């Protein structure tokens, strides 16, 4: 990545975000329950008695069991299906969009710092608020070039859901939003998820059966009900006998390479290059084009046997690709 490609955002662009609140504060959905603490220490394997045993905790000078301090953020997690993390008022959306536009599309969490100022105890309601602390100048790192974004969450605890809580801790969280040096190198937070999607097929009444088939793990090809001719690409009628009646049959997925290309340029961000795409003679007698994304270009040749594989591309879309059949290396 050259610096020219990703010059980074200016202070004038970044400074307005510092100090901005990431939306309204959020209260935990329930007060702290001993069973939640129990699940957590079971998972972590923490045998410190102060989290579950009143007597032991009091023997250390505390008033009761306390919630493990590392659970600070747990109480405000949205839970399964939760979306509270990102509200419409969240200025991070605007910041991330700016960074996206500047080419910094991948993200990795780099630092987590928790300060424990007080104890939370069972029965406490935890309220969380978050502000953007700072956005760094552009930096070059081993992952690539990008900006560090630091946010600070503050946590208050109160036995009364309506009461003012006391500050019990802060969590400083740093993300690196970057343009990866190599495409496809995901970070800890799954940096690859920001890759632009692949071109979607246009699906209509003539070809929908095919994509329904791949969802079911089948490579379905049209077959004329009248004369039995297989046809691909799909068509509403049979060119051999003009019948409009058709059904589909699942191919074995085995075939041989009839031709192939190795794409180098231009590069569409959704794909890895060099990209091998093959025209395959399926053993049933129709030809089919699909990529061979996991195949080295040096290993591909006309005539080699291949087998189909499937990959989920989007929630509602599974696409086929080919791999060299076992034992087919040159």
């Amino acid at each position, binding site marked *: 990545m050259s610096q020219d490609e990703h010059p980074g955002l200016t202070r004038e662009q970044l400074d307005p975000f510092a100090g901005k609140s990431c939306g309204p504060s959020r209260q935990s959905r329930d007060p702290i329950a001993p069973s939640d603490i129990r699940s957590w220490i079971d998972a972590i394997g923490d045998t410190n008695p102060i989290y579950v045993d009143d007597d032991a905790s009091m023997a250390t000078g505390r008033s009761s069991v306390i919630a493990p301090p590392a659970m600070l953020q747990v109480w405000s997690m949205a839970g399964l299906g939760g979306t509270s993390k990102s509200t419409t008022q969240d200025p991070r959306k605007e910041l991330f969009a700016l960074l996206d536009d500047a080419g910094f599309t991948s993200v990795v969490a780099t630092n987590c710092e928790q300060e424990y100022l007080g104890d939370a105890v069972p029965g406490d309601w935890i309220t969380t608020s978050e502000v953007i602390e700072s956005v760094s100048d552009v930096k070059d790192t081993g992952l690539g070039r990008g900006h560090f974004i630091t946010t600070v969450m503050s946590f208050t605890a109160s036995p009364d859901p309506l009461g003012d809580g006391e500050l019990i801790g802060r969590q400083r969280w740093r993300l690196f939003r970057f343009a990866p040096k190599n495409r496809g190198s995901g970070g800890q937070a799954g940096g690859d998820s920001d890759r632009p999607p692949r071109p979607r097929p246009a699906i209509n009444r003539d070809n929908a059966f095919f994509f329904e088939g791949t969802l079911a793990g089948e490579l379905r090809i049209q077959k004329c009900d009248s004369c039995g001719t297989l046809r691909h690409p799909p068509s509403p009628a049979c060119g051999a006998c003009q019948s409009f009646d058709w059904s589909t049959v699942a191919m074995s997925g085995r075939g041989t390479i*009839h031709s192939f290309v*190795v794409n180098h340029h231009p590069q569409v961000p959704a794909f890895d290059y060099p990209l091998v*795409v093959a025209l395959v003679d399926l053993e049933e007698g129709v030809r089919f084009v699909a990529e061979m994304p996991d195949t080295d270009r040096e290993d591909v040749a006309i005539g080699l046997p291949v087998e189909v594989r499937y990959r989920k591309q989007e929630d509602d879309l599974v696409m086929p690709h080919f791999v060299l059949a076992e034992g087919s290396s040159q």
Partner: protein
Amino acid sequence: MSMLSGKTAIAGIGATEFSKDSGRSELQLAAESVLAALNDAGLTPADVDGLVTYTMEKNPETEVARALGMGNITYFGRVNFGGGAPGAVVLQAAMAVATGVADVVVCYRAFNERSGRRFGAGVQDRGTEPSAENAGYAWYTPHGIVTPAQWAAMTARRYMHDSGATTEALGAVAVAARRHAATNPKAWFYERPITLADHAESRWIAEPLRLLDCCQESDGGQALVIVSAERARDLPQKPAIIKAAAQGIAAPTAMMTAYYGDDIGHLEEMTLVADQLWADAQLSPADIPTAIIYDHFTPYVLMQLESFGFCGRGEAKDFVRDGNVELGGRLPINTHGGQLGEAYIHGMNGVAEGVRQIRGTAVNQVANVENTVVTGGAGVPTSGLILGADG
């Protein structure tokens, strides 16, 4: 078609300069090239009553007519399938003129195809609206095969496998185009010839195609004026008689992705065009001293030489050797530099070069050109022409 043979002529040609950044609108390029062609023909916009262009053309007939102050237009039509159309627009114009539907038909194509929307970028952003055309791309674009070079490479690979054509054979086509462009001041690659080694060392675009196997992306406009042969004889330029014009879609033909026939390296639709042209003009390859062979990608030039019978099937790799398709060779092709060397104007600049060869005014003139062949884009529904001298 025999009804049409010899009835009409190309009486005027006109173009803008060919560049990578025209600095003006596509409509201005269209208007400038149409006006230049009319001037060349000794006609005015008021004489025009027919307009034919490509379906991909973005300059409406109404706007071109308004820009130049044309009067009543009684015939207008368009031809589909991109670069397959240059012979077909001439065919439409010729049919309109021969039948009396129009008297002066202008064919035009103008775009900022380098500085504006680049065809080389492909159709990665093609919509998912469920038309048959879009659905046809469903078998390619989701797999990352989105550009003309990538579509062509699939066919080229198989052709090379079946015929034994190597990189050297593709290189011979590129070297010839660049040699001719080097002496054509209108060519983008004027005074910039290449060697076979330059070709072989150029970077991969889509294997087996290298950068120097691929045509340029260009800004520019080209127009042609078609009138009756009779009228052409009274106009200033020596007529280029339309001896034959033909189109072709064959059973396996598709838009760049004819991957499903028995022999994908054999251009069925171009063979269909060639057979019609030879029959209608009553000519054979031996009558053709120079030809304009659509050169979007070098392997397709080899395939077309076979389609037209300039050599046998699978023999083009030998035919193009030893300078045989260069000036002084057995069949100099693309004497303007082709789309590899002059400019990519969707084949229309090739028609203009065919006209110049008949007139005897080409910068790389071949001696005694009584007849020449001009082909449209290969690997798509296509077209072709045989132009000849009068008499």
